[in-house]
């Protein structure tokens, strides 16, 4: 079966510096896949390449077997890829409601039922719906960023460091929601520094080092792997 998402031999360069080399990644329908690695390993670049913000110099990105690596970023969302960028990047001067509406910018008409669904996932957003996005706490902003991406009705959701800078309890709540999103039918590719928690959530994982995939396996296998334990679970496994 064709995987939902496939990166085949993807290479990305920032000028002379290679950021990704020969990266092969597959995400199948209904999976949660974790992308792990240290700072600067190329995790964010991978997501940015998938959503068209960065063009690969070699290789291809395929969505359901169709090449998408030359599609302009603003059209990628219409193909069913929702991206929650690193640092949340909500629109700070727009209201929570407007942030959600703009998630559906590429399609016509936002129904109340769609908003209600987001508010059901994140009840706090309903309370804050008329507040400016910039006034929310970090966790609330992360919820808003996820809600905003869900408003585009993605088949594949890209999450870049959803736990960044958040308190453990909030992280747990966010990870629960990610699981629920998958159970509702959205495939998830999540980038995380918090490897232990990410692998507990994920079905499979990839480990990036210096722009290359150095390990790819089931999440459980990776969790048990000696090298992963030493490199990524040592400090994050609180």
């Amino acid at each position: 079966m064709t995987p939902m998402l496939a990166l085949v031999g993807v290479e990305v360069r920032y000028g002379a510096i290679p950021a990704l080399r020969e990266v092969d990644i597959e995400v199948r329908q209904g999976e949660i896949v974790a992308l792990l690695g240290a700072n600067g390993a190329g995790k964010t670049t991978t997501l940015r390449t998938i959503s068209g913000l960065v063009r690969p110099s070699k290789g291809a990105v395929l969505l359901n077997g169709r090449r998408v690596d030359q599609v302009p970023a603003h059209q990628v969302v219409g193909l069913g890829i929702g991206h929650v960028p690193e640092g949340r990047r909500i629109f700070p001067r727009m209201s929570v409601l407007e942030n959600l509406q703009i998630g559906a910018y590429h399609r016509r008409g936002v129904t109340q039922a769609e908003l209600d669904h987001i508010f059901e996932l994140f009840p706090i957003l309903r309370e804050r719906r008329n507040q400016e996005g910039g006034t929310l706490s970090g966790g609330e902003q992360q919820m808003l960023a996820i809600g905003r991406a869900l408003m585009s009705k993605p088949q594949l959701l890209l999450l870049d460091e959803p736990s960044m800078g958040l308190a453990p309890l909030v992280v747990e709540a966010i990870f629960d929601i990610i699981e629920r999103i998958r159970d509702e039918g959205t495939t998830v590719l999540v980038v995380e520094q918090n490897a232990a928690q990410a692998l507990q959530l994920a079905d499979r994982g990839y480990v990036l080092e210096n722009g290359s995939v150095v390990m790819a396996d089931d999440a459980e296998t990776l969790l048990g792997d000696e090298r992963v334990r030493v490199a990524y679970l040592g400090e994050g496994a609180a």
Partner: protein
Amino acid sequence: MCFTENFMQYLVNGLANGFLYALIALGYTLVYGVLQLINFAHSEVFMSGGFAGYFVLQAVVGRQPHGLMSVLMIVLGIVAGACGGGLIAFLLERVAYRPLRRRKAPKLAFLISAIGASYFLFNLAGKEFGRTSLSVPYIFNGTNSGIAFTFLGAQVQTMYLIWAAAAIVLLVSLDRVVAKTKLGQGIRAVAEDAETASLMGVNIDRVISQAFVLGGLLGGAAGFLYALNFGVVYTMGFTPALKAFTAAVLGGIGNLRGAMLGGLVLGVAESLPLSCVNFNWQDVIAFGILIVVLLFRPMGLLGERLGRSA
């Protein structure tokens, strides 16, 4: 006594000019919001609006219109001016800016391109339409400059009422468009965070073009309103547009309401001292205000609200 003498008259004159500055200033601030760039060719958008209104009225006005016909002609002129300004703004973005953006040119290249486009356009107008001032046909009040009424000692020209009415309608419309429509949402999203906006499906190129056209519509309308009083000439854009730029900075560049407020404040601030000093001081005062504001409040009166994201 100086300053209190004819205070109301200078206030009324200043407000009237201020409405025009506000309309032009919005063009600067809209483009700055989405591109962080000052469109120094906006003066020629204004001029184009003046000429468009002039030519359309030349073509349709026979005998001097009265009453309802006058109103109709004013509206026609404003629409023609807006279309002329919008068209030139659209072309400017396509020809003078977009190719540079594609090539990721440095900011200085945009500035030079803008100045080049500006000189090209006003010299082209000078060559095609002559280098002397042309009067817009009289369409109301005998000579377009009659007095409507006297208010607390200030003579209020019919012209001023037209300026104020047209500007208020346009300013409120723009404010609503930006706040309530999908087009406005796209403009605000790009101004806040262009890259994230593109992830949401916002076509940045299209939004930039829309911002130019919206600003061009208002600037072109202002060009016609100005021409009603002062006529049209190829250099007409230079001073009003530079002052409107001042107004935009005064209000906080990138901030739409700031541009409106800045326009009115500048109009009044450059007008009131004229009760004490010679009329020739007007432009000196206007640009003196720019320098003083920049010294003490570089972000302008209301700050960069629409402005760039972190």
